[in-house]
């Protein structure tokens, strides 16, 4: 019989201990005998970045990743967005009664895998079990701390007129992959979620110092949402060019069919970078030289002091890129 999670696994007793040991310690590493109520960290001097995020994606498993990998990478990328080097993560699980051990082991396993690959440990966590119908299989909350070098300050308030806007690769892959999966569109061809950690890519930009003005991973609401936030926060207009946006052919075709726009689709492994005009070309080369940024493109520039995002279309016309409203896809991350 398939072994499933029962309410008793969340009771705090023997079954909870077994669950933690057999699933989580097995996946993340560490010694159960060292367990305590908090992990104790030694942080480098200087500023510390601290972030948290919850993951409720449906379906839990998708081409290119699963909810575990997503929860790990999402928090790593939030740290990377402020220029931090991730030090450690926490992961909390809310598990619905009836979830199989196999699914849970697989999810914890992919967290362990990306943790080992990046060298960023999961140092603390929690599990709760809710009765059937009160959740949907597995929800994960991850938190993370990271240290920021003294000369790094990534924030949209630093954006100045004429700055270049770079996206680190093709847009909309994650959102399209999940939507296509839900709509039953056959995507065995090529498009997988772009779910990936980006802290290495951002660290490669540290030498550019204050020439890098801002960075942000373009998750829910996609590139369109981040650019609108930047326009508001920097009080600048942003002009981007439709023909420079890196969009995979399958994503372009599929979104047209579904009535969606790649610019609003979630990404889980793409960063937007605002960079000074002087260093734009050099930064773009540097990003492209990194494995996570091979398809990076300079998509536009900032300009006047009217905060809005304008798209120059392939037709040479211009239109606003409005803040996405209403129909944003639910449970995309």
């Amino acid at each position: 019989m398939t072994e499933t999670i029962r309410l008793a696994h969340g009771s705090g007793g023997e079954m909870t201990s077994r669950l933690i040991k057999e699933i989580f310690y097995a996946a993340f590493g560490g010694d159960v005998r060292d367990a305590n109520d908090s992990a104790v960290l030694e942080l480098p001097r200087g500023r510390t970045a601290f972030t948290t995020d919850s993951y409720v994606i449906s379906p839990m498993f998708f081409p290119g990743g699963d909810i575990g990998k997503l929860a790990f990478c999402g928090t790593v990328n939030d740290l990377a967005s402020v220029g931090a080097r991730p030090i450690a993560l926490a992961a909390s699980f809310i598990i619905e009664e009836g979830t199989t051990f196999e699914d849970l082991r697989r999810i914890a396993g992919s967290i362990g895998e990306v943790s080992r690959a990046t060298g960023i440990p999961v140092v603390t966590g929690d599990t709760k079990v809710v009765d059937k119908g009160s959740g949907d299989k597995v929800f994960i909350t991850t938190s993370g701390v990271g240290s920021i070098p003294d000369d790094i300050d990534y924030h949209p308030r630093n954006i100045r007129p004429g700055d270049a806007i770079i996206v680190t690769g093709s847009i909309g892959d994650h959102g399209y992959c999940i939507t296509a999966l839900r709509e039953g569109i056959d995507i065995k061809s090529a498009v997988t979620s772009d779910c990936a950690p980006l802290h290495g890519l951002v660290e490669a930009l540290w030498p550019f110092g204050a020439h890098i003005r801002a960075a942000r991973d373009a998750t829910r609401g996609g590139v369109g949402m981040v650019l609108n936030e930047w326009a508001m926060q920097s009080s600048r207009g942003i002009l981007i060019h439709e023909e420079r946006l890196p969009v995979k052919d399958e994503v372009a075709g599929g979104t047209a069919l579904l009535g969606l726009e790649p610019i609003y689709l979630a990404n889980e492994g793409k960063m937007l970078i605002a960079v000074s005009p002087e260093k734009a070309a050099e930064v773009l080369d540097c990003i492209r030289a990194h494995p996570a940024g091979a398809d990076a493109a300079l998509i536009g520039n900032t300009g006047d002091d009217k905060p809005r995002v304008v798209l120059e279309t392939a037709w040479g016309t211009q239109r606003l890129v409005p803040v996405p409203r209403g129909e944003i896809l639910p449970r995309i991350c």
Partner: protein
Amino acid sequence: MNRDDDKKYFHLMVERLREISKRPIKLMEVCGTHTMAIGKSGIRTVLPVEIELVSGPGCPVCVTADSDIDAFMGLARDHRVTLVTYGDMMRVPGSAGSLAELKAEGADIRVAYSSLEALAFARSEPHKEIVFLGVGFETTAPATAHAVKSAVAEGLQNFSVYNLHKTVPLAIRALLAGDGVQIDGLILPGHVSVIIGEAPYAFIADEFGVSGAIAGFEPPEIMAAIVRLAGDINAGAPRISNIYPKAVKPEGNVVAQGLLDEVFAPGDAEWRGLGVIPGSGLDFREAFTSFDAAKRFAVERREVRLHRGCSCGEILKGMIKPSDCPLFGSLCTPERPIGPCMVSSEGTCAAYFLYNDDANIVERGRP
């Protein structure tokens, strides 16, 4: 044509339009799909100042009367039926809330992409009474007719239609005949024309001296329609042109027309903003009246007073711009719409709100 040819053609059309534009011309795109395509493509930013585009009554959601929304919702409240609707209708506010709110209160309201989905519900849930909201013009009406005929063939007793289908040409006639409406040319709806063909538009040029061009939905196709209309207007030679011949045959889709004629007969229909237009509705013929939800459930429509200040009516007639409405962007937004023009994804106000068509576009290359 490939994309590069399309672009060349588009720019050629833009150039041509600049050459021939000498005096102010007001064109109306009748169809909501055109409204959205124009907003999204940014075509207005390359038009000469002389050319003004206004939006017409061709968005099915926008022209749905409040009283019809109330009546449809009443079916769920009073008769506990299952309502099936196209998604766009969910958020349209009637006088007592929207279908989405009614659903949140626990009513069985479902969104479908086609009338056949509604029919499938009736088939698989024989204990439930399924009422489909038949909304749309000649484009969606044949699908409703087909569903009703299938229901007859299968002997499905628990399926009916709350029928709000309308036809486009008579609305255009009412619009052109109305007071205070100044339109020089019409961009005619491509999808509707696929069904009805060219002939039903002849009166536009013959009786009103206004030119019309049946157009597709890609930017070069829309631009070609504008150039054609500007040329005709300059020449003082009104005519109806079909510049979407790859999809629209002169005679239209004869099979679909036959289906419409078999199931429906012309009836009166109430259009928001335009009032009751005789003959512009599609009533069930005698043989199919048992599928008329309004009759089956003895629905009473009650007159509803429009929200004070809501200018959907004038906007649908191209008399004012959305930004001239006192509610636009303040009390009425896509999140909290008051009039249907702000709700529909094809609505004039939603297009203006989203793409800010009035102005605001930057100097070339210098945002």
